[in-house]
């Protein structure tokens, strides 16, 4: 049967439009992200929180304003002097929340970096080399994933002992399987793509293929997962501290603030209100940003 080649014009059009709008991919992602108001709000709030964490020691003195007890001023409701009130030991809740952002953000980010490096490497190796290595690594990951959510982190913290480093290790280990899976599946999908086969056909080394093709193509899901994972980790830290297994009082971690304010819930609700709002705002901002990034990086999904 005789057929007009209907595909050629369409493909040419795509090529030409590409030439017309010759922008780098990251510029285009940024352009799409900027049009998403919710994501921009998330980004702005996230940046403000980071600035708050960085400058918290300039704003408040840790020894005198954050952990120093001031019993006569205990349980003060919000006022000009103490905008968020004072806690059961007379400490300014605002100062403690501002300082608390340091714990949440620094633990959150370092956990994700750690988990990304370990999980990403394992996943990429498993996906790229396949076979036995893949099989063994993925069965081990399955075992980790069989333990629901944060229970594994709880056990690890309990076993390792409570300090910040152990907290990061525990949270990172429980985030590793997630990253390993993402990297593995995106490596698997890239590995089969024709241009990678072409690269292999002209004799590119494994290392070169990984650096040039696999990593850039895995970037989108990794960025999204990292953003959302920071949110999950911050939520988990708060949960652990609330259970008395995370950051210990009197250090002003948000979950710990909530935990110690619990017994005053009936009469002094604001003690738990403000730390809760702080956690929620942070998570909300990171989720908005993560969702926006996902839409911007993969417009097909929108």
């Amino acid at each position: 049967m005789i057929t007009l080649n209907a595909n050629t014009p369409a493909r040419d059009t795509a090529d030409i439009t590409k030439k017309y709008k010759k922008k780098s991919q990251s510029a285009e992602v940024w352009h799409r992200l900027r049009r998403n108001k919710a994501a921009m709000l998330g980004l702005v709030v996230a940046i403000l929180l980071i600035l708050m964490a960085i400058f918290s020691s300039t704003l408040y003195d840790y020894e005198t304003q954050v952990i120093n007890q001031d019993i006569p001023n205990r349980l003060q409701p919000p006022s000009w002097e103490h905008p968020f009130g004072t806690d059961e030991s007379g400490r300014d809740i605002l100062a403690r929340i501002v300082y608390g952002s340091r714990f949440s953000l620094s633990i959150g980010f370092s956990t994700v970096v750690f988990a990304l490096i370990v999980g990403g490497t394992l996943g990429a190796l498993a996906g790229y080399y396949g076979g036995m290595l893949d099989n063994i690594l993925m069965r081990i990951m399955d075992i980790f994933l069989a333990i629901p959510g944060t229970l594994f982190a709880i056990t690890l913290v309990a076993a390792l002992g409570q300090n910040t480093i152990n907290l990061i290790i525990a949270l990172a280990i429980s985030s590793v399987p997630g990253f390993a899976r993402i990297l593995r599946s995106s490596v698997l999908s890239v590995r089969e793509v024709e241009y990678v086969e072409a690269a292999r056909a002209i004799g590119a080394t494994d290392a070169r293929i990984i650096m040039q093709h696999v990593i850039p193509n895995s970037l989108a899901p990794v960025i999204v997962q990292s953003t959302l994972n920071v949110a999950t980790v911050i939520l988990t830290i708060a949960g652990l501290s609330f259970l008395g297994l995370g950051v210990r009082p009197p250090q002003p971690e948000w979950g710990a603030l909530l935990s110690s304010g619990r017994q005053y819930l009936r009469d002094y609700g604001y003690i738990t209100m403000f730390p809760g709002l702080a956690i929620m705002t942070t998570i909300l901002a990171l989720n908005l940003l993560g969702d926006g990034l996902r839409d911007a990086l993969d417009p097909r999904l929108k």
Partner: protein
Amino acid sequence: MWKYILKRIVAMIPVLIGVTLIVYFILSLAPGDPVRAMLGEQSTPEAYEEMREALGLNDPVIVQWGRYILNLFRGDFGISYKTKTNVAVELAARIPSTLTLSFFATTIAIIFALPLGIIAAVKQNTWIDGISMFISLLGVSIPIFWFGLLLLQFFCLKLGWFPASGADTWLHYVMPGMALGFHCMASIARITRSSMLEVIRQDYIRTARSKGLSYNKVIRKHALKNALIPTITVTGLQIGSLLAGSVLTETVFGIPGIGRLMIQSIQGLDYPMVLGCILVFTLMFSIVNLIVDLLYAFVDPRIKAQYS
């Protein structure tokens, strides 16, 4: 089908053994000394040694773990360091509370999530969509324990509509179920919306419309069942985090379930009990995953074909 179920149950065993191995070794790293904790600081060295020997703590960890696994196959979860009671008995007494709580939470989550997600998708980019998605985003972002505290403060302490603590009647489970289910609900609603949006764009939806079906009927008869497939996956995963979240919820509302037992056991260095709790949670999660896979077959004939 039955063959598949059997295969899956058999496949669970090595995973559960793997979990005990990992958790056993992690707990063996723990700094605290359970024997010291049991006997107190003033115990004689002889009594201390005797106790260690009796508990088998002088053997290498791998031997201890082997013994634990062998006992496990006989239904023996060991003896609590703290209360000296049988761990299995203690767990059995706590399981109903956790199951009830999880059931309440899951039900609340699904009942609200599906309509919310579907309406948001059908009315995409309208204010209804906006509100539904804002509620969902809130649910994903709000810490379970804080939301629990808010509910406790308002509905239990201030209004007194529900009891603030305990697990005696079903009324005790309403607020904890809400607190725990909200988070889960949010995730399910979001995935329902996005998979619904994906399905609405499919060719077979257009085909169904071209047959003369009304839009609402197309959504009900054609789109919904297809959109359920990713929704079921996410619901299964969410139940995993819901189980973990029951630790927090049980602590906030003072429900005597497995989650609270686990935290108390961690604080009391009662490792056989901690291990038992984790195993129960893992088993529950594995069963949920199996149910999810079976539900797939129920919804999607392509998957059903693979099972037989």
